[in-house]
């Protein structure tokens, strides 16, 4: 019966044509009031502009310098374009240098993100849901462990993890990167808080009364309600796995299994070796290519994420 109404909080932003008649005027009034105030926050706007410049400048630098040759990189002004535009050539060389190993690193990173971050999100959703909605003995203990785990940086665990994995014979395999990535205490904590707020217990009860199994209640009733939270956790774990450096550095010795972070660093280190070729232009172009998927993921997923930000802000 009331299962359908559950969709209300999350779909309100989509704005179906039948409902918002009553709401629109209410929304507009505060906006008008705000525009009057905006004139006074000129300093704040300037500050925002500065912050924007500060965060975009490195990106701009990366974009500009990815268009230069190794020579141009060293002999032209850093924040503007050089005479010859070598971006396409750089991309082609990045993709083919050293037997096309960059593409292999790219594929590795995607593999680690899909299995690692995807798996971590899945586990966090299951765990967070269970902790938020079910009462069972030891719940407080689990809470303490999770909170404690959030405080321990993964870097501190890397060496013990390495020793354990090496006993199990898993070092130098993709599993050594994927398995530790599956654990995301912060993601679990986030999902837990979110599930507590976003799923009214009454809905679950009504689903049970209607005869839905636990699995069906979870997948068909609760999961859609959790979408903003899931996307948030997915973004967090994705960024963490995509940028992961220290764990693969310790675990992997075979360049064939490197993620992009390690691979690009290896290319960069090459310039400091006797007999090694300096390829700063390829490192920069590779870095640019490396951040593109993350930017795309943010742009595609941000609306789900934003709708999640308002969770719990209005008391019903």
């Amino acid at each position, binding site marked *: 019966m009331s299962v359908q109404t559950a969709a209300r909080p999350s779909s309100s932003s989509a704005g179906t044509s039948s409902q918002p008649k009553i709401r629109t005027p209410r929304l507009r009034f505060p906006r008008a009031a705000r525009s009057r105030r905006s004139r006074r926050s000129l300093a704040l706007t300037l500050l925002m502009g500065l912050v924007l410049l500060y965060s975009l400048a490195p990106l701009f630098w990366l974009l500009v310098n990815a268009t230069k040759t*190794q*020579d141009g*990189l*060293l*002999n032209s002004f850093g924040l503007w374009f050089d005479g010859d535009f070598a971006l396409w050539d750089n991309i082609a060389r990045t993709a083919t240098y050293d037997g096309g190993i960059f593409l292999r690193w790219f594929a590795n990173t995607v593999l680690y993100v899909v299995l690692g971050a995807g798996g971590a999100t899945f586990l966090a959703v299951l765990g967070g849901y269970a902790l938020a909605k079910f009462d069972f003995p030891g719940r407080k203990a689990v809470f303490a462990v999770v909170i404690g785990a959030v405080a321990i940086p993964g870097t501190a665990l890397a*060496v*013990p993890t*390495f*020793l*354990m994995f*090496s*006993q*199990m*014979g898993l*070092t*130098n395999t993709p599993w050594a990167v994927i398995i530790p990535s599956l654990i995301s205490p912060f993601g679990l904590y986030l999902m837990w808080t979110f599930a507590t707020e976003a799923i009214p217990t009454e809905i679950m009860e009504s689903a049970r009364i209607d005869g839905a199994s636990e699995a069906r209640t979870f997948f068909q009733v609760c999961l859609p309600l959790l979408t903003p939270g899931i996307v948030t956790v997915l973004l967090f774990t994705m960024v963490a796995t995509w940028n992961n450096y220290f764990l693969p*550095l*310790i675990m992997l*010795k*075979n*360049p064939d299994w490197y993620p992009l972070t390690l691979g690009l660093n*290896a290319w960069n*280190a*090459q*310039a*400091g*070796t*006797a*007999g*090694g*070729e*300096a390829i*700063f232009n390829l490192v920069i172009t590779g870095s640019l290519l490396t951040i593109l998927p993350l930017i795309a993921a943010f742009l595609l997923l941000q609306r789900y994420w934003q709708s999640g930000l308002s969770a719990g802000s209005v008391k019903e």
Partner: protein
Amino acid sequence: MIKTLTRRGLLQTSAVAAALALGLTACGGGGNAAPQQTVNSDAVEAALQKGGKLTVWAWDQSLKKVAEGFEAKYPNVDVNLVNAGTGNDQYTALQNAMSAGSGVPDVAQIEYYALPQFALSKSLAELGQFGAADLDGTFTAGPWSSVQAQGGVYGLPMDSGPMALFYNKQLFDKHGIAVPTTWDEFLEAGRALKKADPKAYIANDTGDAGFTTSMIWQAGGKPYKVDGTNVGVNFSDEGSTKFAETWQKLIDEDLLAPISSWSDEWYKGLGNGTIATLSTGAWMPGNLVSGVADGAGKWRVAPLPQWEKGANSSAENGGSSLAIPAASSQAALAYGFLKYSNVEEGVQARIDGGAFPATSKDLASEKFQNTEFKYFGGQKANQIFAELAKNVPAGWSYLPFQVYANSIFNDTAGQAYVSGTKLKDGLAAWQKASVKYGTEQGFTVKE
């Protein structure tokens, strides 16, 4: 299988982690070498014919060609060449693998300065058992003494780095400055260059442990004395003092460009005339060709400036050996690879790849000596390098914890480059910190 971590297990784990952080397994285990079985060259040959899979950790690019040639000559051997990181990164990884007891390679590239550390902790196979001692005379004196430690041979020299003076001839000609032959003239040339062009520097230096020790080596200094676990550190000898005094003047008069070697700014400075000279190992030409295309035709090579007028001495800078970790189960096969790479056919493949050999025979060969370097305006630079390789003062040794010592150089001696500290006092501070660390690690250290 995952064991639950007991308190003891945790302690062991953290102890290993601490050892990793220090880069040195202090638990050397008495001092007795593993029981040595003498393996003659037939056994190595048999292992080569039988074959197997050989894992080699090396960052040197020219080894690719060597591995191909080796596999062609011994079809049953499969070489798995892995770039496990450069320099220190690789040593950490090697130490990790040794501590964990798995994933240890059969052959590892180890720089000369780091070799004693691995040899002392019994992490490497002693190569005398394969007849490596017979190779005396095959290599030039500097590299050959670099692979000796604890009374044994722990690696075969892969390359060498006799130091030479690389200089931007165009810049010197433009300002009418003579190329220095002594370090005093070097100082004068630095002053003249600064006067003629305030933007140009005679050299770059922001404090580099390897460069400093090499310079002291050339000056005849012997700050490190090593006899087993008895170690002496003393930077007040004549050679160290000579270096400190001259370099202090260069620092005080702002004659050294504040640019760190190997940075992009450094590559730029070498090309555009900001940095006029480079005193470094003979392996440098390859890097100049690929990294400083702008300098082609402008740069030349000269003998390293001398501390005494008319002298003729150099020092080794950089260079690495190939060694066999003690944990390798295929030491005989691995030795076959070492010999192929560093004594036999592999040497030529590496020379063709731009490496500078450590074998006397190849250094003296006509083909090598007569190679004309287009980058250096057609100069036969190898003749200069080979001459310098012969004139490396004997008796130099690195600390058995040099990797650590070098890692704290910039906190101690390096301060002279960025603050008012005198280089002499900086070296004294480096000495004190090295002694402290060595004592903590169980060495008997004298100042």
